[in-house]
């Protein structure tokens, strides 16, 4: 063991170091909480219990997780083609519009099993449509996708605002919201689904959409690493010249990849509109599209990583809400700051602890070796 090995055992890299990072984040947050005169240990307990403590809390955590998986996958897919899709928010918003329009149009006439696949298609299609224009402009006109997707987020908000206030609003209503969908256009909640199997569960927004999210993960994994299209996307992302050389139509691929990204973001609409709210409303995305960027990057653009990162963010959202509920002096903004710290330590400073851990690890191994030699000698 003379050479300092750069390769640490996997359990350290994917287990111990992230754990240290979370711990660091909580220590710093704890200091802040301590300063305002609350008990940091108590606060952490509340966050953890609030996120995972019982089926009710877990339900909310997983409900957020569902959204983040969708948007995280959306960002990741685009990233593999080295496209930075900041437009997840707008695509999710418009995806929800698609679901809403479809449900409003069909919920009087068709049963659930017809509406559901159509709604999934609608959410994807609308999300893809919203990604299509920036993608087209990037591929054929060289417009930078970061700008166009930022712009399309704003345009999505304006469009939705217009439609809700002027067209979709239920007459005589104060809220700019559509009418409620009929029961047939509701995705069963996890509570209902569990009841089919005789399991009792709390009522939370968690619904069957989470399976769509998990399916999407499997799909993205298969697609990116086990199909020729995914192969082409990754090649395009790594090296555009090589993609050209390989006979890939890069322009079409850019458009295709962004559309797939839009489809995934659009699925947020399924979870939110058909799964939870059962009507079209303002701001239902609540920043999930932006959170997806952090989720994708922290999950290293891999579905497994994205599931883990989504769970972390879901837990932060839910546990954070519980924290501000249980300890009134900790306001939502304080929770937000804690979320920022966790992202900082677990995401941006993810490699900070590594050299130290590495040193300790190597020293330990060296000690063992010395000890072994002494024992032998």
């Amino acid at each position, binding site marked *: 063991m003379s050479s300092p090995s750069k390769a640490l055992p996997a359990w350290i890299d994917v287990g111990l170091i992230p754990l240290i990072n979370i711990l660091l984040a909580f220590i710093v947050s704890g200091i802040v909480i301590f300063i305002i005169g609350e008990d940091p240990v108590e606060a952490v307990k509340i966050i953890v219990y609030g996120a995972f403590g019982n089926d009710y809390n877990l339900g909310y955590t997983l409900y957020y997780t569902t959204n983040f998986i969708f948007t995280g996958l959306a960002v990741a897919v685009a990233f593999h083609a080295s496209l930075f899709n900041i437009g997840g928010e707008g695509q999710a918003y418009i995806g929800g519009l698609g679901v809403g329009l479809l449900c409003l149009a069909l919920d009087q006439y068709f049963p659930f099993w017809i509406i559901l696949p159509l709604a999934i298609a609608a959410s994807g299609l609308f999300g893809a449509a919203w990604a299509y224009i920036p993608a087209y402009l990037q591929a054929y006109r060289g417009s930078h996708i970061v700008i166009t997707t930022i712009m399309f987020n704003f345009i999505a908000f304006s469009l939705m605002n217009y439609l809700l206030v002027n067209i979709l609003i239920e007459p005589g209503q104060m809220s700019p919201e559509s009418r409620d969908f009929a029961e047939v256009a509701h995705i069963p909640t996890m509570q209902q689904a569990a009841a089919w199997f005789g399991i009792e569960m709390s009522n939370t927004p968690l619904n069957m959409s989470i399976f769509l999210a998990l399916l999407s993960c499997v799909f993205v994994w298969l697609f990116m690493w086990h199909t*020729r299209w*995914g192969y082409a996307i*990754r090649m395009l992302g*790594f090296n555009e010249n*090589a993609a050209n*050389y*390989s*006979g890939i139509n890069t322009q079409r691929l850019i458009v295709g990849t962004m559309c797939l990204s839009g489809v995934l973001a659009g699925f947020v609409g399924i979870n939110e509109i058909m799964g939870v709210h059962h009507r079209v409303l303002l701001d239902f995305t609540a920043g999930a599209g932006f959170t997806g960027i952090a989720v994708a990057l922290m999950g290293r653009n891999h579905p497994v990583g994205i599931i883990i990162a989504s769970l972390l963010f879901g837990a932060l959202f839910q546990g954070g809400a519980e924290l501000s509920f249980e300890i009134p002096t900790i306001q939502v903004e304080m929770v937000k700051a804690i979320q920022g710290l966790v992202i900082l330590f677990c995401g941006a400073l993810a490699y900070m602890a590594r050299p130290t851990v590495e040193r300790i690890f190597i020293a330990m191994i060296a000690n063992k070796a010395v000890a072994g030699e002494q024992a032998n000698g």
Partner: protein
Amino acid sequence: MGGQSAPPPSIEPAIELKAISKSFGPVKANQNVDLKVLPGTIHGIIGENGAGKSTLMSILYGFYEADSGEILINGQKRKIHSSRDAISFGIGMVHQHFMLVETFTVLENVMLGAEGAPLLNKSSQSAREELLKLSKEYSLAVDPDAMTGDLPVGLQQRVEILKALYRGAEILILDEPTGVLTPQETDQLFKILDILRSRGVSIILITHKLQEIMAITDRVSVMRAGTMVSERETAETNKNELAELMVGRKVLLEVDKTDANPSEILLEAKNLSYSEDGVKKLDDVSLTLKAGEIVGIAGVSGNGQTELLAALSGICPLQTGSIKIGSVKIDSDNPKTPKEFRDLSVGHVPEDRHRMGMVTAFNAQESAIMGFHDDAAYNGKFLMDNKAVEQHCVRLMKDYDVRPEDPKLKSANFSGGNQQKLVLAREMDRHPKVLLVGQPTRGVDIGAIEYIHKNLIAMRDAGSAILVVSVELEEIMSLSDRILVMFEGRIVGEVDAKEADARQLGLLMGNAGAQTEAASSENNSNNIHSEEIPA
């Protein structure tokens, strides 16, 4: 040149490396390497790809830090933590992969890090003067205001040398400097090195070309697998001995081939022209490739070879002219994609393996199916058959001696020679009717060169038409049956390989009499146009 008698050993070495070791993770790139370079001499270092030459030089230049060992400069023990330290000790280095900012002008690149004053105005003025002076002194003409990225590699390398000269280096390290140069340029570089040597500059030269070692160095060290295996006085050794020391076995230095017997025409290009941003890159190029022959394209890099390969492989769409492959005619009205070219049995080994030939972030098996990833052999209905891909890659690695034989290893982690073999394997394994090969052996050690040449000839003998583009005149001459010379996008001459000699080709490449430097600078269309040179 060369052969300058070495100073007596009592003189303090300009550089002395003692027991240098450096590991990258499990890889021991350098192990207890010793090296002495006497002042005012040129010291050659040779070794296979991955032997550790660049690593050693990077340590000397402060780019990496050695795990252990000592560096003495002019007898003084020195710690070199960064390139800054190295520069302050008078060391200059021309890196194997150029350290140039492509969006900068030549002047800016030369100045970078040696600007003098905080404001550019003054310093760029004096730098410009200094640069012009240096250019004159060493006949290294280059336009200080040219955008570096637009320059052909040969000129980019001049910039690298000028950078080192500008800093007044006392010790100059050149890592494979001649890989991209024409014989004329190489001669010129060696003239410069000669002048520098006579001024007392100590030079370390890394190269894979043994004739260069023989031509210019005073001493030569041989590295193998991270260690220094032997050292020779250049005058007292020969190419064959060096090759053997390097590879550890006998190497055939000459290409061994029979006469070609070309048969039917497989590819015919007529009047190809191509311009980009108003600059004519290809100018009315016509050529034919016949089954069973190797056609070589000689020329200073940047004279349209890249575009020719791109046009013949479908990467850049045809603007004017046509290509006929078998019975299929391709022109701007009937364009074909690179994929369709491949389907017409055209294989293509690009000039730059990192830019185009492979994806360094892919593992070997992924790089091994580039361009063929749509093939039914690797795909199910939806999913890719990764097992089949892996088996394919393993077979390629076996058949073409790619080492290490690990299909999961990242492409970037193969040495240049093995990367090249992998790309060649991918393209040759399909037995294309037409094979386009750009720079088949750039940066590749002699063992691998031997292997690659053997395979190309075997393919020719099996009835393929092969087009080889290389800046390596020797390679072109020994490999080809017919040689075309390109200059400024045109084919300016055709020579039978058996009758070709380096001087004559060199003249053609520089467009008969026109100075090479003039030739490589853009837009000098009032040169003498010699369409046909009498043999």
